[in-house]
């Protein structure tokens, strides 16, 4: 009666079993399946979920109003996180775990006075972190924080500004999520 290894199920004949081509084929087939599974185990590390989406066209941001930024292009995505047909503003998490979420946008020139500029990262509409500065226009603003995310969570970046004048818009923007740790 053939036996199998405990975890990967590699099947081998026992003493007294007939070792014919079928037994050898079963051995080779189950060995191949085990190696395939082993490869998959490693690929879970080397192919952790990563996604980023971007846009370059100007998007209006009304003064003193937190505004979800939208995107037009999938930069990369190995886990179905970017689905612009479903949402142009949110990364949609497909694998639970801890992620480093990073977002940036460019504030174009032309503001008369910038009192504050906010970069806000949200999950399902709830703020997770915010950076507020009062530097200048014509520069990039960015924020990165870790998040513990569940399947279906919607990750967004918001922009907000106070001041006077200006085009009241943002231009180039990126939003990405990189899987850090499994639960």
């Amino acid at each position: 009666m053939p036996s199998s290894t405990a975890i990967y199920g590699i099947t081998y004949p026992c003493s007294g079993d007939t070792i014919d081509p079928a037994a050898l084929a079963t051995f080779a087939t189950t060995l191949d399946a085990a190696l395939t599974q082993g490869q998959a185990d490693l690929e879970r590390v080397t192919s952790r979920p990563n996604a980023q989406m971007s846009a370059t066209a100007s998007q209006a941001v009304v003064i003193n109003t937190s505004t979800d930024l939208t995107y037009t292009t999938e930069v990369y995505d190995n886990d179905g996180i970017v689905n612009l047909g479903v949402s142009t503003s949110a990364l949609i998490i497909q694998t639970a775990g801890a992620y480093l979420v990073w977002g940036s946008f460019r504030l174009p020139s032309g503001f008369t006075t910038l009192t504050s500029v906010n970069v806000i990262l949200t999950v399902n509409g709830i703020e997770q972190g915010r950076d507020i500065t009062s530097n200048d226009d014509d520069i990039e603003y960015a924020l990165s924080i870790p998040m513990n995310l569940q399947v279906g969570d919607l990750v967004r970046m918001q922009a907000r500004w106070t001041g006077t004048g200006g085009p009241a818009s943002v231009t180039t923007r990126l939003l990405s999520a990189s899987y850090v740790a499994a639960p």
Partner: protein
Amino acid sequence: MTELIGTHEIPCLSDTDYAAYALYMQCVAEQVEAQLVANAAVADSVLHRPIRMWFYTDDLPDGSAALLGGADGVQFSLNYPATFGNSIAATLNRRGWWRFGMLYRCTSSAPVVGNNRLVTVAIFPPNTPSSLRNMNDGAWSLKLQDIAWETNTGGGESLYTQAEVYNPGDPTVGENDLGMRIEVAIACESGGVETVTFNGALWAIYLGDTPSISI
């Protein structure tokens, strides 16, 4: 006579022991499985790396540096050994590379143009006396700092530091650095306000030991 082949020493039958086919196949199966299990364990340790995020609030004297002693809570924690403790002054008892970061926000007192706020995360060697766990002349091994310079009244409430990578196994630090501590200090100036309330978060992510760094 069976010969061992290759770096994984797979047994190979010779022309004198074909009677041992069954035993041979069992040996190969068990050896391959053992190697796969070992590989899977390495992969699992990378995937299930410790990560923890604390949040806290504190009131600090204006213009001074102060250590934050304890956290208000843990935002989330995955694979984080219980022995690391719950406080902000966490002990890092795992050798390897860590990534630290913090996000800090002043929640009161409008800033004044020309003033600055400084936020610092420091890593201290184990068993550092509390008298040396300060930001100015302390025995820190690493400081992460961010500074915000106010250019307009009413803005610039928050400070943000995305950390560097630190390796307690660095030979210049030494073997005894298992048990490094994370400490947090804030120095701020905000136009003469005596007490400033901050809230924020600090996080620590284990990246792996030296041969298996990845993020």
